[in-house]
């Protein structure tokens, strides 16, 4: 069976006052049916732009998808008309955003924000849609769902709003859910609850999932495969296990050191990755991680390292020194 989603050499650019920003610069990855794939990277690495590109929700201007293919369920989404694309959004692909405070409409009831999707895609009448909305709220673990349906977003806590977002995303039985940092804005205790909920629901319903996060710690527990992004590119890809236990890119290694842990209070000190994320308008022909890399050598300035296979099957790294890295790391540690 072909993968549910195959992103091939996707390019998305923004024309800004400061110059051309290649926010997504040729990323390729796949998501199998029912699988959870993670996209990890610091803020500004192009994770959201990559996700929004799949649904073709990049604001144009200033943004534009300039190259690549997005094969979903056998169709290239880039070739669809706007009307055909609307059918995919919300019906085949559901989206959960980062900010539960601002992602729900403040002047519409919770019920309306769920039923409108059902009315749009399934032609459901009011009554059927409201019954389904109630069912969905129960499914995402909201207590007293009858009362909550009649309420407005500001009457719900952040965690509950994110549950509502999940209900909206699941409303039409999608094949894929894209969750863009679904827990970043929430309290630590709530974060784990939401992630567990998403894991159990997607598993139960057989929905595939793309989880976007800057926290590599989340990945090990919730995703089977991981794509690490840096400056608009995938710099390392592999099974969650391989990435976690045998990282082959200096950036991944640095990210692992900075993992905030869900089981520890927020106060526990994090080691952020040293140095600043690069200015995307000023990238040269070398490795974009070079200015922050402890392992950089002369070769790294001359060419971009290609994403190439390392030890295990399916494990890729874009680093000239990936083969040596496991030894160097042991020595350094």
């Amino acid at each position: 069976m072909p993968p549910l989603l195959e992103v091939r050499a996707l390019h998305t650019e923004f024309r800004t006052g400061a110059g051309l920003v290649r926010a997504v610069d040729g990323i390729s990855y796949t998501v199998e049916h029912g699988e959870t794939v993670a996209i990890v990277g610091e803020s500004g690495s192009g994770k959201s732009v990559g996700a929004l590109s799949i649904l073709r929700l990049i604001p144009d201007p200033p943004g534009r998808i300039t190259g690549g293919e997005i094969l979903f369920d056998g169709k290239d989404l880039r070739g669809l008309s706007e009307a055909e694309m609307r059918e995919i959004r919300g019906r085949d692909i559901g989206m959960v955003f980062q900010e539960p405070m601002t992602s729900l409409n403040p002047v519409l009831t919770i019920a309306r924000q769920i039923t409108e999707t059902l009315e749009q895609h399934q032609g459901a009448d009011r009554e059927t849609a409201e019954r389904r909305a109630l069912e969905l709220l129960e499914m995402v673990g909201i207590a007293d769902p009858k009362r909550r349906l009649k309420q407005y977003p500001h009457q719900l806590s952040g965690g509950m709003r994110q549950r509502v977002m999940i209900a909206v995303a699941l409303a039409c039985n999608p094949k894929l859910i894209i969750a863009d940092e679904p827990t970043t804005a929430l309290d630590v205790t709530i974060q784990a609850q939401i992630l567990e909920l998403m894991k159990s629901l997607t598993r139960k319903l057989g929905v595939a999932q793309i989880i976007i996060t800057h926290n590599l710690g989340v990945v090990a527990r919730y995703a089977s495969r991981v794509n690490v992004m840096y400056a608009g590119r995938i710099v390392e890809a592999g099974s969650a296990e391989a990435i976690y236990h045998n990282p082959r890119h200096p950036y991944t290694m640095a990210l692992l050191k900075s993992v905030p842990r869900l089981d520890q209070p927020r106060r526990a000190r994090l080691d952020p990755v040293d140095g600043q994320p690069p200015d995307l308008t000023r990238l040269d022909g070398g490795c974009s991680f070079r200015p922050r890399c402890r392992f950089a050598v002369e070769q790294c300035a001359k060419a971009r390292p290609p994403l190439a296979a390392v030890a295990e099957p399916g494990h890729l790294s874009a680093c000239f020194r990936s083969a040596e890295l496991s030894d160097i790391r042991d020595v350094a540690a």
Partner: protein
Amino acid sequence: MYRYIVKRLLLAVPTLVGAAALVFVLMRLIPGDVCVIRLGSGGAHVDPASVEACRQELGLNNPLIVQFLDFLWSYFTFDFGTSMWSGQPVTHEIAARLPVSLQIAVMATVIAVAIAIPLGTISALRENTWLDHVVRMVAIAGIATPSFWLGIMSLVLVLDITYLATGKAWMPPIQYVSFWQDPIHNLSMVLLPAITVGYRYSAVTMRMTRSAMLEVMREDYIRTARSKGLLEQIIINRHALKNALLPVVTLIGIEFAFLIGGLVVTEQVFNLNGIGRLFVQAVQNQDNVLTQALVMLVVVIFVVTNLVVDLLYAWLDPRIRFS
């Protein structure tokens, strides 16, 4: 809810007393008085004795503080007095003049909203296209054009067009007849001023709608609505406009109140016998009682409009309704 309304109305009492004090003092600062003007209007010699008798009769010789307290007290007992000029109860004077003013104000507001909201929305959705530029130019012209000039020009235009078309220049009628009595007569009199004033007031609302709409279209919940695959029409009507119009509602209320206050010029230009004109006459005649009554009427309209707008806002915005 009722408690809120009562509280707001009680809070308005100091405002009303303050306005009363202000108009009372201002009227007394104008040199001369109604008796001199009334007795001397024919250009005849003014007999000091009859002026004195007139002043005595109208209570103008009482100490100022007594006059002021009389004024306040009579309002608390809903006795608004009689015109110092005509001797008619001011309620009659105002009742005869209010309908035309009110009709123009309401129609102008409706016209302003009907122009402003669709154009402002389109302008925002087509930001930086030629359509947007045209709409914004129309709005700026509306703000920059003095309403008396606009009024005169539209009258001249009507005169010219009817003259060219029929060989006889047509002027809107001057005598006010209510809409129910004779709709055609009524509208042919009121429509032109209502459009002129409405256009002018639409300009500010249009700009407000545009900027509110631009802001809302960038909100996260609009992106969410898009990610659900909703039709653009639904995204704009249900998700964007509902939010963008919240501040616009407040503006429309404030504009309506200002419009009542600003009718003086419009009525002068279109030769309408409304309260704006009555106000000018009352001040010219130094008719303190009538002037005070008109000022208090405008202040009450302001207070009530503000209250209605706040209630409407709370009703439209669940964040206020449920807090």
